[in-house]
């Protein structure tokens, strides 16, 4: 589904962050990327979505066999990649319902049936125990950490992408947030879609069936293993990889 | 002769008289007197035919060049019943300029070419008239304490031309009896990622008449810059006249600018709290006002001078 080959990328201000990263995600898999601060975890998700703050210096990103390096962010989203944000931006005056409708219309080839859309949205809200009036609030404005997280997961379920990249670097210590995310992934996951979880805390993985764990250090994946690798890192830290 | 001073960079409706200050004045010619100095070298000479964009400088003036290194330098002018028209050029690291005296006539322009911080303290009093024009051509912090006498006119002008540089102007003013204060402060942003701020704290009592004009001006090309402007004034009498015109001009999309003005009487809850601890009303008020002033006074690199200013403010209140 997603293939990344020998990827080098830097921030717009010049500092090289990813230095020859390789990664392959197949349909139906859950991958976890772990790594210490500054290893390039957040950069990776931003580069996949082509955030203009970053620049690919060399290497390729393929999604369903199509090169997506140079696509605009919204075109990548339309292909079926979703990224959750650590700190979702507050957009004043824009209601969640209005925003979701616009987004769903944008990524769908056909015009979305409003009735179906609303039914689906209400179902998802039920599953996440979100109150009805929540979608009349302004997008992320004044949200608590937990509410922001729920809103991201609600968007994930509603937009229903092929690949979800969940940047959970910050939520390692918040137990409620962890529950929301792992519950959300289980609701989302089926045999046809894939998930990448970016974290440095193994707690989030407890209720999930993880296929691969990758260790990202200094802009490169230096070890890949199964879920036991996450446990090992939780116990021993990254020190043995940092040399 | 009538002088029109402190013109605003953009004019607005004239019905509230904020655009400029009209004053009938006899400009007194330059008289030479030595500055008291510490830690600085100065050159002084009298020159003719100086052209000045702002301020009141006449054709003949005292020219003062100030140099120093890393220590705090002092330039002090003490002139009871005396007068001074001067142009002070600052090439120093940390400089304090003090004006003192009763019934003084002070007409000065201060041009800052190089400095880390410059503190200008106007302690003239009674019938004194002061005209202080400050031009900042570098990245220094300027602190201006305007206590002055009967008429106090001041302006600050700075355009930030260098990328990534910072310009800060802090000022405290006090007006009482029937004193006239006219303040016109301007910062222009002329390059990328610059920062500038105008912070003004004031107090007015009796029949004082104050006009504050502050301008934050983002030029085209000042991307990534941020500027803020704040005037906070406490009004202690219902006979004061307090005018404010805090302008925010913007010709660039990628900037952040804020300005805020707040005026009003002293916070009654604070007053009640202090009085419940045994302070008199007057002591409490002075304490509250000084607490507003403190964050600016803290920038003055000389504790003794700071205490002298606090004493002077308390005395005048």
């Amino acid at each position: 589904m997603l293939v990344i080959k020998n990827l080098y990328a830097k921030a717009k201000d010049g500092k090289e962050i990813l230095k020859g990263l390789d990664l392959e995600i197949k349909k139906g898999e859950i991958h976890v990327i772990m790594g210490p601060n500054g290893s390039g975890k957040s950069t990776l998700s931003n580069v996949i979505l082509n955030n203009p703050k970053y620049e690919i210096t060399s290497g390729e990103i393929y999604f369903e066999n199509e090169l997506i390096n140079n696509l605009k962010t919204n075109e990548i989203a339309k292909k079926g990649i979703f990224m959750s944000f650590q700190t979702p931006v507050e957009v004043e005056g824009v209601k969640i319902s209005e925003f979701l409708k616009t987004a769903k219309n944008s990524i769908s080839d056909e015009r979305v049936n409003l009735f179906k859309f609303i039914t689906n949205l209400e179902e998802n809200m039920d599953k996440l125990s979100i109150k009805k009036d929540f979608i009349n609030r302004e997008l992320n404005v004044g949200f608590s950490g937990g509410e922001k997280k729920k809103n991201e997961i609600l968007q994930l379920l509603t937009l229903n992408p092929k690949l979800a990249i969940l940047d959970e670097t910050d939520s390692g210590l918040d137990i409620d947030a962890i529950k929301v995310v792992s519950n959300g992934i289980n609701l989302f996951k089926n045999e046809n879609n894939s998930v990448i979880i970016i974290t440095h805390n193994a707690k989030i993985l407890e209720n999930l069936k993880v296929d691969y764990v990758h260790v990202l250090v200094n802009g490169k994946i230096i070890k890949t293993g199964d879920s036991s690798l996450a446990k090992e890192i939780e116990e021993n830290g990254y020190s043995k990889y940092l040399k | 002769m009538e002088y029109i001073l402190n013109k605003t960079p953009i004019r607005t409706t004239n019905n509230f008289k904020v655009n400029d200050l009209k004053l009938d004045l006899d400009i007194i010619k330059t008289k030479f007197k030595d500055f008291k100095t510490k830690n600085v070298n100065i050159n002084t000479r009298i020159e003719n035919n100086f052209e000045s964009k702002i301020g009141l400088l006449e054709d003949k003036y005292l020219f003062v060049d100030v140099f120093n290194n890393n220590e705090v330098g002092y330039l002090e002018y003490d002139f009871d019943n005396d007068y001074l028209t001067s142009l002070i050029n600052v090439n120093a690291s940390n400089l304090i300029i003090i004006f003192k005296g009763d019934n003084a006539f002070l007409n000065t322009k201060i041009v800052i070419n190089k400095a880390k911080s410059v503190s200008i303290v106007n302690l003239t009093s009674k019938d004194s008239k002061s005209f202080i024009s400050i031009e900042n051509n570098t990245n220094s912090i300027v602190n201006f304490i305007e206590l002055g006498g009967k008429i106090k006119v001041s302006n600050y002008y700075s355009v930030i031309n260098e990328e990534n540089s910072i310009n800060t102007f802090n000022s405290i003013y006090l007006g009482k009896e029937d004193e006239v204060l006219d303040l016109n402060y301007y910062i222009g942003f002329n390059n990328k990622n610059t920062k500038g701020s105008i912070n003004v704290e004031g107090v007015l009592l009796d029949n004082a008449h104050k006009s504050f004009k502050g301008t934050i001006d983002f030029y085209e090309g000042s991307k990534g810059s941020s500027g803020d402007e704040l005037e906070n004034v406490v009004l202690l009498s219902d006979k004061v006249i307090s005018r404010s015109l805090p302008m925010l001009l913007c010709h660039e999309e990628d900037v952040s600018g804020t300005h805020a003005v707040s005026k009003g009487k002293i916070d009654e809850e604070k007053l009640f709290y202090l009085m419940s601890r045994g302070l008199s009303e007057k002591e409490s008020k002075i304490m509250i006002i000084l607490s507003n002033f403190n964050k600016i006074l803290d920038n003055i690199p000389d504790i003794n001078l700071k205490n002298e200013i606090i004493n002077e403010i308390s005395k005048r209140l």
Partner: protein
Amino acid sequence: MKTRIELDDNIYNKKVKEESVSKIVGLTKEIVEEISKEKDEPKWVLDIRLKALDYFNKLPMPNWGPDLSMLNLDEISTYVKRGINTSDKWEDVPEEIKNVFDKLGIPEAEKKSLAGVGAQFDSEMVYHKVQDDLKKQGVIYCNFDTAIKEYPDLVKEYFTKAVPIMDHKFIALHYALFSGGSFVYIPKGVHLDNPLQSYFRLNSKGAGQFEHTLIIVEEDSYLEFIEGCSAPGYNTLNLHAGCVELFVKKNALLRFSTIENWSKNMLNLNTKKAYVDENGKIEWIMGSFGSKISMLYPMSILEDNAKCEMTQLSFAGKGQNLDTGLKVVCNGKNTSTVVNSKSISKDGGICTFRSNVLVNKKASNSKLSLSCESLMLDSISRSDTIPSCTILNDDTIFSHEAKIGKISDDTIFYLMSRGLSEEEAKSIIVRGFAEPISKVFPVEYAVEMNRLINMELEGTIG
């Protein structure tokens, strides 16, 4: 764009064939006398016109604000008469004019939700209607010219009392040439559940419009009044120098909403003033989209416990200079003023917020809070905030905040990561920015406003 409400953009450009129109170019005493004669006015009205003409000739052009030097008063036909009398039957309105108003949805709107509608075409009021039950309660809503004839005592008592004829050059011009406009009288204790609405439209090329609106809301009454203004796109400069005088009596509330979408060749120099008596309240709601230059600063004069609220949105595009704001004079104690202004500039458009606040000595315990936010969509545009404030007592609480915002790259990236195009993302952000203002507008205007915002943003992003 899928979220956009599809409407026919061209309805604002419908021009009616110009015919049977006697245009008078330039301004002399004779012209003023002729206008008065044609209207068959009493002498006291003519006297006001002539005195005003005198002031107009004497008063200087404003020496601040937008540059008005392109204005040549000799070239502007100052009065356009279409030989139409005001009607209260929609069927009597000439077909061509009706078509324009039909397109603009005026009669439909009336049927739906309005208590009364007035429509002014160029200088004359063509249609005025107020529901019968309101008439029975003593509500008057008619053409201002009619009011002079039918309610002379009321008009005499209030006319020119809020806005004096020598206030400034363009108000003097207005009083010399005023024609049409609305007169509204709400008697004591009448609460209008539905708004009254006036629609102004300039149709003739190079025409000026000098309508006078006078509204009196007596004690304990409530009125919502909506003004809509538009003109088709001619190339000649048009001038609009209207005047609005509002009297809000004790415990009364007046909500005055204006949507201006003049064509981009209009000089809109409008003067509005409200006297608010004890415990009364004025609510100004203003949306400015059109015109080449606007200078508009509604003034509120507040007595004891009176309140003023203003909600304002300006959107300046290419070639537009929208200089708007307000004036407030606090005369009585315990007054309260809350101002919320937002502006959007793009393509070299200039938005200026200009305010003048005066708190008099008697106005103790006054509270004023002003907040301005501007959004710049590019760096060739301008956005200036020029607030002046004079306080003459010691227990006023005044605060003014201003903020320049831009559309942050992070926000655009966030929205694009959810599938929105850059254009859609910008448009949704701008509409969100305008949301707190557009939500206080009547619903059909809010829809219209979103449409205007989308129209303005269309094609601006590469």
